[in-house]
């Protein structure tokens, strides 16, 4: 009797599996030929950092949004099978130190906080900043990138002709103009503090097209986004011929990794990730990644990256 029901259950489950399989990505279909995702240790030699704080052993799961995530994490336009972005490379570097695999869990940017609270992944790594709201529910790692707000204008815009890429640009220089940025970005808060600037927020797509089409006068946004969409850094990026960044990045802040305070293992993982960052900052790995994505600048020395 027991055997019969079990077989029946397995049969039904397999049929259900077939249905889910088609919905899964091609990549995982290929992996599927190999059977299960390993849940036992694969012990690849010496590991310099422990990984005791993970939800699933030997799999670092990090939440991020790849749909509008260039250059943090996104599908390579030249080969969408590949997930690329500097945060993918950072995650890979951490996983390598721990001797485990890393896995990005796709989550809408606005819902990252809620998904973290539901323990859908170990941590958030998606250009995440420390805010007062987030302090209530999250723990934060040491910074892994020190970024600033970059101003972008059209190349042929006479009104900004006096600025070059090393001049000092501040909020006052943007007063009287319509400035675009992403909804939920820190630049949105910064622009909101100056009532003489007309701010336009973009929810799904970044405002570079609108700037080129003269719908807005300038863009103020995290420097990495400018590196990809304007300077053409990284795979898939092409230099935008109509736009140019002006001034040095300002209102500097740090990208950190966020952990769920409610998760009992969060502090353990936090220490392990901090240890990994410490190594990556000193052995030149982070430097190499940031140079590749045109994100390297002297500011990084402030958070100890060499």
């Amino acid at each position, binding site marked *: 009797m027991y055997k019969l029901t079990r077989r029946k259950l*397995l049969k039904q*489950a*397999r049929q259900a*599996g077939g*249905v*889910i*399989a*088609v*919905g*899964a*990505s*091609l990549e*995982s*279909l290929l*992996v*599927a030929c*190999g*059977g*299960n*995702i390993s*849940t036992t240790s694969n012990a690849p030699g010496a590991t310099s950092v422990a990984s005791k704080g993970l939800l699933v052993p030997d799999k670092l799961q990090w939440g991020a*949004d*790849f*749909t*509008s*995530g*260039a250059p943090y994490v*996104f*599908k*390579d*336009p*030249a*080969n*969408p099978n590949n997930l690329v972005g500097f945060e993918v490379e950072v995650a890979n570097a951490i996983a390598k130190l721990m001797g485990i695999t890393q*896995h990005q*869990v*796709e*989550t*809408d940017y606005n*819902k990252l906080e*809620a998904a973290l*609270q*539901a*323990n*859908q992944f170990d941590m958030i790594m998606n250009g995440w900043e420390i805010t007062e709201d987030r302090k209530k529910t999250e723990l934060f790692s040491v910074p892994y990138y020190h970024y600033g707000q970059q101003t972008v204008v059209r190349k042929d815009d006479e009104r900004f002709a006096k600025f070059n890429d090393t001049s000092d640009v501040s909020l006052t220089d943007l007063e009287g103009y319509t400035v675009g940025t992403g909804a939920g970005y820190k630049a949105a808060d910064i622009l909101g503090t100056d009532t003489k600037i007309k701010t336009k927020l973009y929810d*799904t*797509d*970044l405002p*570079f*097209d609108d700037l*080129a*089409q003269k719908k807005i006068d300038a863009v103020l946004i995290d420097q990495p986004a400018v590196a*990809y*969409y304007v300077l*053409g850094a990284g795979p*898939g*990026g*092409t230099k*935008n011929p109509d736009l140019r960044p002006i001034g040095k990045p300002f209102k500097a802040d740090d990208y950190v990794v966020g952990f769920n305070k409610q998760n009992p293992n969060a502090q353990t993982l936090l220490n392990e990730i901090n240890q990994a960052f410490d190594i990556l900052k000193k052995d030149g790995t982070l430097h190499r990644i940031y140079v590749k994505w045109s994100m390297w600048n002297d500011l990084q020395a402030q958070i100890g990256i060499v």
Partner: protein
Amino acid sequence: MNKRGTKGLNSLFFIALTVVIFGFFYYLYSFKPLIILYLPFLLQGTVATIIISLVSIVLATLLGFGGALGRLSSYVPIRWLATLYVEVIRGTPVLVQLLIWYYGFGNLLSSLGFNPYTIAFQLMTVLQNNSLVPDSFNGFFYGVIGLSFNYGAYLTEVFRSGIESVPRGQSEAALSLGFTPWHTLRRIVLPQAIRLTIPPFTNYFITLIQDSALLSTFAITELEQQTYALAFPQVDANKKLFVFVYGALFYLIICYPLSLLARYLERRMARG
């Protein structure tokens, strides 16, 4: 307008139409590398969209049938419950319902220890296939439930009016001939009611397929989200617009044949 004038205009029109169609194909052709490169990803999204829609319409049919029986029930509390279900669902947007299922109930249940992803993952681990469970399984799960409940309410009304369209005298006759109520429903009422409900049912299926695009807000890799993921990293604005057009073509390819079918069925019904 005289006949010759009409003819002249018509031939002019055909030339213009041909030019437009060729223009559109040339537009597509000019993005040939992107078409080939992105075809597998959009096809994969299309398959996911079709699976979501099929599972949802099956569940919605069951809910709708149950709801219709509830609406016609002689037991008052059940009738009220069914009416409440129909009115609340039909009075609120499907997007809001999906948000509530996914973020509201989804987070609530997962804080109580119920996580569909973990259950599916563990089940598939037993079957040596856990890599088949997508990360966004929770999104699929609650998304399908949300769509099913929404369309269940609309189908309740479709089935109810279908059942009510069968003259009461027929079921009374059947009952007096010794049929049980269940038998009467299955043998007498339903066969007649189903014919009437098929055209609106097909129409609702088409709108369900279109509404499944809303699941893209839960990061589920269906057609719409796949389109976004391919479009947004494009630096070139023309390429970005093209990816949106390309994605829309896939919806057209799924839905247009269905809407032709719906119209054919409607015409056949009208003829009796």
